[in-house]
């Protein structure tokens, strides 16, 4: 156990010593303030476009636009765009060592393959959690700083108005769930990374699976209903669940368990493959 923790520490050091690890952080650090500044300048136009359909039923006074609302909408990037930053690193964790030939050094040490793969998986989770929470902090924090705070209006099956304090709690919950969702993506990329000896394959492979699964998840065709429970993307929207009233805890718990099962399956397959793998590179 102690050796696994030690290996986890060094795997984390390795991940955070690579330049590619910071591509996501840098992109978020540049893009989020830019979006917030643009919204601050052109926010009213966005509002009129976004709420045009509601103007027949409601009479708006002032603005609904604030940092929290923009942050809420920015969470949509977590579907397709954000996983790129996850697979970029997770896809390289195992395959990168294979390609570089460093497994030869690592695996001749008195550490078991199970410990190696577990420590790498934990380090991948650490990165995933760090970048998702960074997005959350950046998005909500910069949003409030640049555009300002206030009540959050959520338009989903009606209008839900959350006071800032409550909205911040919901964001915290949403981003914790987003960590779990993105960990599923990371676990899949990790699995492909275990099979491959270069990191391009896992990145493309994971993305292909995500896109195909997402398409199948959102298509409303009866024939597809039976396979949807087996698609991990069917549980992706769990991070929007905290913005319902009341919070659907049972649904959230169910989705978290389902995603956990996918993570566990991807991890166990990775372990089995890696333990049987011949290190020939």
């Amino acid at each position, binding site marked *: 156990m102690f*050796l696994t923790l*030690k*290996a986890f520490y*060094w795997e984390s*050091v*390795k991940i955070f*010593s*690579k*330049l590619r690890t910071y591509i996501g952080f840098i992109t978020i650090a540049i893009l989020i303030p830019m979006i917030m500044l643009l919204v601050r300048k052109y926010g009213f136009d966005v509002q009129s476009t976004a709420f045009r359909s509601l103007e027949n039923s409601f009479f708006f006074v002032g603005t609904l636009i604030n940092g929290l609302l923009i942050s809420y909408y920015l969470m949509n990037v977590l579907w397709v765009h954000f996983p790129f930053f996850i697979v970029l690193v997770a896809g390289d964790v195992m395959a990168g060592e294979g390609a*570089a*030939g*460093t*497994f*030869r*050094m*690592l*695996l*001749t*040490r*008195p*550490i*078991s393959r199970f410990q190696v793969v577990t420590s790498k998986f934990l380090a991948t989770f650490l990165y995933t959690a760090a970048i998702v929470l960074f997005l959350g902090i950046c998005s909500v924090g910069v949003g409030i700083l640049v555009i300002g705070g206030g009540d959050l209006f959520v338009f989903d099956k009606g209008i839900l108005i959350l006071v800032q304090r409550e909205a911040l709690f919901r964001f915290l919950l949403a981003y914790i769930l987003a960590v779990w969702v993105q960990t599923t993506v990371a676990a899949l990329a990790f699995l492909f990374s275990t099979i491959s000896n270069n990191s391009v394959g896992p990145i493309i492979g994971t993305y292909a699976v995500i896109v195909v699964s997402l398409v199948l998840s959102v298509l409303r065709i009866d024939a597809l209903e039976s396979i949807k429970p087996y698609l991990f993307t069917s549980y992706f929207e769990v991070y929007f669940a905290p913005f319902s009233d009341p919070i659907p805890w049972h649904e959230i718990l169910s989705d978290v368990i389902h995603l956990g099962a996918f993570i566990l399956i991807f991890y166990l397959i990775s372990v089995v493959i890696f333990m*049987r793998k*011949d*290190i*020939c590179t």
Partner: protein
Amino acid sequence: MILKTNNLSKRFKHRLVVSDLNLEVEKGQIFGFLGPNGAGKSTTIRMLLSLIAPTSGNFELFGGDWKTQDKKVYSKVGALVEAPDFYLYLSAERNLKILGELNGWISRNRIYEVLDIVRLKDRARDKVKSFSHGMRQRLGIAQAIMCKPELIILDEPTSGLDPEGIKEIRNLIVSLSKDLECTVFLSSHLLHEIEQVCTHMGIIDHGKLIVQGEVQKLLRETDFFVTEVSTDKPQKALDLLQSEPWVKKVALSDEILKVHLSAECRPKLAECLIRNKIRVSSIIPRTSLEDYYLSLVKRESEK
């Protein structure tokens, strides 16, 4: 017995790379594992280090079977397999720290000590990506010895080194064996390297072990102790030596006499030539492992 393989074999799809290999390496030996490229040396080493699983057969490290033995046994093993690949984006010191920590614990002093041995102390904080191939090779040696192993497995350790570096590494291998009582398993395709460094050797070709034993004994059992002699009258010297009973065999090639005789008869050789007014420019004793090796490999391929 430090290392023993029992009918160790490895098959990649339809290609048998290592076939029924039976090696025995005892404590304190510098065992040379010799063979041409593609003979199965690296595959054997990878099996011994658990990087690949044998198709059949087994091996024992420090008396324990590899299937049942704890991975902790590798804390007593230092290894360098083929090219020394490190984390290029990390410094030499950090690379050694990571690998050393997985062995249990490694002090900063010890890291600098081994870096000093391989002449990389002043580059300790530089990223490995700035290192030349030779420097990486030396760093590979450093990581193999840093945890004071009882068995060192080196796969082509002098590959890519300059002559000075090669000499240093060879001296280091010998001193590790002598001073620290390390057992060394050295794979190489360089015959003279095995000849200069190793006490014992095994020759592998096409995945099969052709011969193994003590280097000098194997050579003594053959005709390949050769003394090369340059004289001003090579033909006269040839005729003279052919008639001497203590000369096993003599031949003339490119004006150089190649004399097969025991080491203790060499003074007699010089004396005989001078007595017969033949001027001697040089007498160079050679143990030709190359000839021995080639004869074995040729014999195997003819089978």
